[in-house]
């Protein structure tokens, strides 16, 4: 089963959403392609393009927080990293995503509350 058509559709659907949030697709094409492939496969399996790097639980409300693009649910956290957790999206001014670190959510909020 090829996911190419659905990957192109997801790109088309996500572009205006992330653009309005100040994000763009990662310039690392290989990473973007892999992540979109995973999302298309997750969508085929579950009906929803979930984030490929976060676990679904039995709590539907919690699962909605990781439906791609999940930026709005993690806005402060992702803005601090200048990327989303899985790295599919980065801030518009990012040119070298490999320099961006994943900051665990718990660490981010602990630092913020200091």
């Amino acid at each position, binding site marked *: 089963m090829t996911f190419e058509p659905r990957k192109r559709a997801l790109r088309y659907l996500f572009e205006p959403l992330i653009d309005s949030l100040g994000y763009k697709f990662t310039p690392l094409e290989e*990473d973007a392609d*892999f*992540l979109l492939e*995973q999302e298309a*496969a*997750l969508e085929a399996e579950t009906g929803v393009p979930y984030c*490929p*790097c*976060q*676990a679904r*639980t039995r709590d539907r409300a919690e699962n909605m927080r990781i439906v791609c693009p999940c930026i709005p649910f993690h806005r402060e956290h992702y803005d601090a990293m200048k990327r989303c*957790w*899985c*790295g599919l999206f980065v801030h518009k001014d990012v040119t070298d995503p490999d320099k961006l*670190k*994943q*900051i*665990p*959510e*718990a*660490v981010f909020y602990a630092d913020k509350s200091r």
Partner: protein
Amino acid sequence: MKKIVIYALTTCLWCKKTKKFFEDKKLPFESVDYDKQDEAKQAEIMKEMKGQGCTGSFPFTRIGDSCVQGYDPNEFEKLLEKK
């Protein structure tokens, strides 16, 4: 040698990169794909992760008694060297 355990998702790019980090160093590790486990094992893994103050984001790497959420080679190096 410290025991290394990686909780991963088969769909996660950073889980792949984390495994490659240890493979490149020829360090043995145990890898558990969360999304391939049954409900009981998933609950056990999630309980351990949340017990360490982490959310359900992957990868989650345990090096000895310490743990790292996310792909963080510098932190992996630090924990490997820590006595």
